[in-house]
């Protein structure tokens, strides 16, 4: 039924902001881990990459979690029926 399909498309599109923030958070985590490995392989000092990652990664994950929390919370808090 058309309404049902439209509702599904809308639900999928509503996920986009959540997907984007998690992509950034996970993408950055992957990037920093890759850089730390590269630094080790080149026998350079990875200390600052580790230090920055200890701050940046929790921050990014927290922000992504906040957005997810709001998304889920809004879906859950809808009026029944």
């Amino acid at each position, binding site marked *: 039924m058309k309404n049902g399909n439209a509702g599904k498309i*809308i639900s999928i599109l509503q996920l986009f*902001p959540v997907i984007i923030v998690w992509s*950034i958070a996970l993408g950055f985590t992957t990037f920093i881990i890759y*850089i730390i490995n590269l*630094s080790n392989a080149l026998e350079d000092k990875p200390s600052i990459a580790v230090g920055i990652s200890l701050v940046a990664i929790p*921050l990014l994950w927290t922000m992504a979690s906040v957005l997810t929390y709001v*998304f889920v*919370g809004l879906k859950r808090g809808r009026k029944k029926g």
Partner: protein
Amino acid sequence: MKRADEHFGEDAILFDPIYKPGKGFYVALSVFLAVAGFAVYLYIRQYFLGLGVTGLNRPVFWSFYIVNFVFFIGISHAGTLISAILRLSKAEWRRPITRVAEIITVVVLLIGALHPIIDMGRPDRALNVFLYGRYQSPLLWDLTAITTYLMASTVYLYLPMIPDIAMMRDKGTKFKWLYTILSWGYEGTPAQKHVIEKGMTIMMVMVVPIAVSVHTVISYLFAMTVQPMWHSTIFAPYFVVGAIFSGTAVLLVVMVVLRKIYHLETYLKEIHFKHLGTILLVMSLLWGYFTFSEYLTTYYPQEPHEMKVFWYKFIGPYAVFFWGMVATNLVIPVLLLSFKKDIKGIFIASICVSIGMWLERLNIIVPSLVSTRLPYPTGFYVPTLTEVGIFLGGIALFCLGYLLFAKLFPLITVWEIQEGREHGIKEVNDRIRSYLPDKKIDVI
């Protein structure tokens, strides 16, 4: 059939830009698109020909693009920092200002983040930063901080927008599909309100240290070199203070402009400008204090390389820019904001500060580069049409971003205003009562 905006009750005028864009909107859109389009052409030309089309040379390897980079990222502190701090301190007068400020941050951050790429000699190799990156380089610290701040500001802008988007989904007539998607099923139930409030509180608290870190790492770009008058520990707080200063000024300029063109006189009242004007005055004096401290510590020991830069700014070729900066950042704003504190005075002071803070970035970057330690022949840096055009394009892009936002979403947080009407007065009464010693005092 009722007109769409009549559904919105007494705050209908806030939705006018969306439902009744005047002729001015299309004229402005065309002008900004033209300027931005010309800037894009100039950049494409630079991409294929090389950075030789700019006025850069040896030793002035960094100039306009990096000045504008720091300038735009500095303005980004307006929004989120001021909005977050005002919300955290429960300042009631924040209500019409918060979203105006937050939009500034997001748009200007995107434009600022473009500038290092515009400045690169080989932007086609930008991915090398990810493939071969070294975190010892302050440029990667910049990358991390700006990404984090961009994400934080966008989430912090979006969360308070949800109730307003839901309002437009329910009562409006245009773009219903967009609002349905973006409102995430918000219906105003107490559970949902609580969720949004909690999300906003967490973001509010997180955004402040992130914002401080962004301009700190930008200052580290310069402070981590050994160049005279760059290698200074004061740079980090100096830049943060400068950013808040320039951000407040641009916020005031935007507020005055929006108030005029969208007829928001009942929402952006004189008291709002007065309060922000006080903040601008305080920041101006604070900026003056930092500047004085920096130049005194440079001047006192008379170290030859640093004095070369010092005199270049004080009496040399950059004297007009240096003293212009002091006049527009300190003298004029302090005089205006102390004696002529109406909207007109505040507007002039803010424009002066915006110009002055741009000059400050120029004064920090170019004189240190021109005054090389070894005696090389150096000329006077003059920007070319490419650099000026791209700068104007950046400003046009900012106005475009703002215009498009205004076309789709209300610039003032409607639900926050309504909350202020319904709950604000009682909350403030209760709060004042709790400060006073005698519980039986009745405050009206």
